[in-house]
C-alpha cells in the first residue's frame, strides 16, 4: 500500500477500495507489473489531442501476461466496479494514444503478451497476441525466410496488428482494410468468460484462421471500436509476396484534378487492376515528409496561403495531388496492367514516377515501403510541419467519386483556415469508399492553438455531419460527440448490448460513446 494520497481515482471508487483492488491485482500479476504512481504513469498520459492531459489521466496500469491473469483481474474489477481501458501496443497516436477514454480508468496494458502463436506458411495466416508489433512480425517472417507480407499502418515499427484492427485501422497493401482481413478473435468478456469467434468456438476446429464467419451471427464486428470485451488473440491473413512488385507515384498539378483522378482510378480499383489501398496525398502531406520547412514559406500566424502552397509545389517538385499505388503480380501480368496505368496517367495529365530514389523524394521512399508492408516511421515527419506535438485525425468517409472529394476537401480546408490551420490531407481509397484523412496539426504547447484546435475539430465534425458525412474513427476526447452524429437508434442498441455483456459497465465505458 502506498502512503501518498492518490491524485486520480476511478469514478465512484473510494481510495480504500482502490488500494484493496490494487493489492488483489498485484497478487495476480506480480507487484512489478502494476503501476500506480503519478510519475510512473506518465507514459500512459502522453496525448496529442487538444484537451488537458488531466482529462485522460489513468488511475493505474496493469500489465498481465496471460488470459488467465486477465480473467482473474476481471473478477477483481467487477467486485470493486473499477473501469478498465485495454490497450495492446498502445500507439493510437492522434486518436488517444495509450490514455484511457475517461479520467480514472485503469489501463490494462497487453504489450507483454507478445507471442506470435502461429504462422501457417501454406494458408498464409497468422495468429498473434495483442503485444505483437508489426516490426516484430516483420523480423519474424524475415528470420524464417517466409515470403509473406502483411499490411500495416504508417507507425508500424511501434504499433501492432491487433490494436490497429480493433480500432479498424487501415494500411496500404491489397490487404489494407485490416478488419476485413482478420480471421478469428479470442475475447475475454467482462465476466471472465473466454469467447473464440467464428470457427474458434468449435472444439478441435482447425479452420479458425481461414473461415471468419462460423455458424449463426458473426460476432467479430462487435468487438471492434467498442467496449464489449478484451481481445486476447487475433487471426490475420498474410499475403504471399508477389514475384513482381511495381510501386508508382502519379503527380497532378491542380487541386481540382482530384475529380478526374478519382473517377479514373475507381474503375481500376474496383476491378482490382490496382489491388491496393491507393493513397491520394495533398501537397501539404508530402511537403513535411519531403523536409519542406513551413516557416520558409509562411513565417506568420494563420493558415498557409494558396500562393505559398503553389510555390512549395514548384520548388520541391510536388504535385497538388500525389497518387501512390502499386501492381502486385507476375512480371507478365504487371507488364500488361502497367500499360493501363501509363494510359490512365497520360489521359488524365499526370506525371508518372516509378523510381523512389532518383525522381521521388523521401516521402516516396516510405510510401513505397508501406505499400509492401515494410515497417518504418517516415510519416512522423508530419509533426515537423507545425511542431509542438499536437495532432488529431479528422477522418470522414467519402464515396469514391470525384465530385464528392473536391466538395469534402473544400469544406475541410475552409474550416481549418478559419482557425488558422492548414489542410494536410489524403484520401485512402478502399474499393468504393475513401477514408479522407486530415491531420489537424497544431502546437500543443500553445494554449491558444490548443483551444482553436478543439473548436476547429468540433466544427469540422458538425459541418461534415450536416452534409451526411461521418468519420470512420475518432479520438477519445470526441467519442461522445462522434457517436451522437450517428443517431439515437444505433446508440440504444449499443447500450442494450453493453448492459447484457458488461452489466457493471467496467470495460472502457465511454469508448466510442458506449456506456450504460
Amino acid at each position, binding site marked *: 500500500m502506498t502512503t501518498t494520497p492518490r491524485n486520480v481515482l476511478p469514478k465512484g471508487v473510494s481510495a480504500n477500495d482502490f488500494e484493496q483492488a490494487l493489492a488483489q491485482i498485484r497478487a495476480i500479476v506480480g507487484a512489478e507489473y502494476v503501476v500506480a504512481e503519478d510519475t510512473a504513469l506518465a507514459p500512459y498520459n502522453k496525448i496529442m489531442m487538444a484537451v488537458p492531459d488531466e482529462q485522460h489521466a489513468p488511475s493505474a496500469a496493469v500489465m498481465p501476461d496471460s488470459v488467465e491473469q486477465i480473467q482473474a483481474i476481471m473478477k477483481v474489477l467487477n467486485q470493486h466496479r473499477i473501469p478498465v481501458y485495454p490497450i495492446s501496443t498502445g500507439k493510437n497516436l492522434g486518436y488517444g494514444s495509450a490514455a484511457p477514454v475517461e479520467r480514472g480508468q485503469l489501463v490494462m496494458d497487453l504489450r*507483454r503478451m507478445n507471442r506470435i502463436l502461429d504462422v501457417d506458411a501454406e494458408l498464409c495466416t497468422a495468429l498473434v497476441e495483442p503485444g505483437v508489433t508489426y516490426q516484430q512480425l516483420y523480423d519474424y517472417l524475415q528470420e524464417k525466410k517466409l515470403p509473406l507480407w502483411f499490411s500495416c499502418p504508417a507507425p508500424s515499427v511501434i504499433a501492432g496488428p491487433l490494436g490497429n484492427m480493433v480500432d479498424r485501422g487501415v494500411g496500404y497493401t491489397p490487404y489494407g482494410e485490416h478488419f476485413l482481413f482478420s480471421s478469428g478473435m479470442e475475447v475475454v468478456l467482462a465476466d471472465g468468460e473466454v469467447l473464440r469467434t467464428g470457427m474458434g468456438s468449435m472444439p478441435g476446429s482447425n479452420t479458425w484462421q481461414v473461415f471468419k464467419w462460423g455458424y449463426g451471427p458473426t460476432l467479430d464486428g462487435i468487438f471492434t471500436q467498442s467496449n464489449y470485451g478484451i481481445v486476447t488473440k487475433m487471426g490475420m491473413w498474410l499475403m504471399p509476396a508477389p514475384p513482381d512488385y511495381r510501386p508508382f507515384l502519379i503527380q497532378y498539378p491542380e487541386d481540382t484534378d482530384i475529380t478526374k483522378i478519382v473517377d479514373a482510378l475507381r474503375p481500376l480499383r474496383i476491378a482490382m487492376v490496382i489491388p491496393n489501398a491507393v493513397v491520394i496525398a495533398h501537397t501539404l502531406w508530402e511537403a513535411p515528409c519531403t523536409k519542406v520547412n513551413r516557416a520558409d514559406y509562411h513565417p506568420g500566424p494563420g493558415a498557409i496561403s494558396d500562393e505559398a502552397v503553389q510555390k512549395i509545389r514548384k520548388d520541391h517538385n510536388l504535385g497538388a495531388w500525389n497518387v501512390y499505388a502499386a501492381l502486385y503480380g507476375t512480371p507478365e501480368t504487371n507488364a500488361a496492367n502497367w500499360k493501363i496505368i501509363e494510359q490512365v496517367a497520360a489521359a488524365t495529365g499526370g506525371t508518372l514516377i516509378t523510381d523512389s530514389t532518383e525522381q521521388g523524394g523521401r516521402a516516396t521512399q516510405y510510401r513505397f515501403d508501406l505499400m509492401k508492408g515494410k515497417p518504418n516511421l517516415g510519416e512522423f515527419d508530419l509533426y515537423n510541419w507545425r511542431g509542438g506535438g499536437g495532432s488529431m485525425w479528422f477522418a470522414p468517409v467519402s464515396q469514391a467519386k470525384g465530385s464528392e472529394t473536391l466538395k469534402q476537401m473544400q469544406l475541410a480546408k475552409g474550416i481549418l483556415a478559419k482557425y488558422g490551420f492548414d489542410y494536410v490531407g489524403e484520401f485512402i481509397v478502399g474499393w468504393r469508399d475513401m477514408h479522407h484523412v486530415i491531420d489537424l496539426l497544431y502546437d500543443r504547447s500553445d494554449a491558444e492553438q490548443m483551444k482553436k484546435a478543439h473548436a476547429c475539430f468540433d466544427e469540422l465534425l458538425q459541418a461534415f455531419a450536416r452534409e451526411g458525412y461521418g468519420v470512420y474513427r475518432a479520438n477519445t476526447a470526441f467519442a461522445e460527440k462522434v457517436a451522437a452524429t450517428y443517431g439515437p437508434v444505433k446508440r440504444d442498441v449499443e447500450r442494450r448490448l453493453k448492459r447484457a455483456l458488461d452489466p457493471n459497465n467496467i470495460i472502457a465505458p465511454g469508448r466510442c460513446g458506449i456506456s450504460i
Partner: protein
Amino acid sequence: MQSNKIRILVASLALSCAHIALAADPPAEGRDRTYAKVCSFCHDKGVGPAILGRALPAAYIENVVRHGFRAMPSFRSSEIDNTALASVARWVSQSPASKASTASPASPAPSAAPATKAQ
C-alpha cells in the same frame, strides 16, 4: 502438427516480454538493440533530431523516453523495460555521431528537458 505442412508453431518457445523479444532479434551491428529496433527509425533518418554524438545525459534520455516530448511518443516499461532503457540511454549518451545517419543536428538541447507533465 501435420507433417505435410510447413507449419511453424512457436507457442512453446514463446517470447514472453518485450525486452526478450528484442534480445531475440537479429544482431544490430554493434548498436544497442533498442536503438536499432525503435529509436533509429526516427533519429537516424532525420525525422527526429540526431541524438548520437551529442553526449546527451543518460537521465535526460530516460526521461524523454518515458514522458515523450512534443511529437515523440512516450514508451512504457512494457515496451522498453527499465534495464533496456538504462542500456539504451547509456549507449546513446556515449556513442559518437552515426555515420549512416541522415539526421539533422537540430534541437532539443538537454536544457529543454521536459518537466514531468510535458506536453
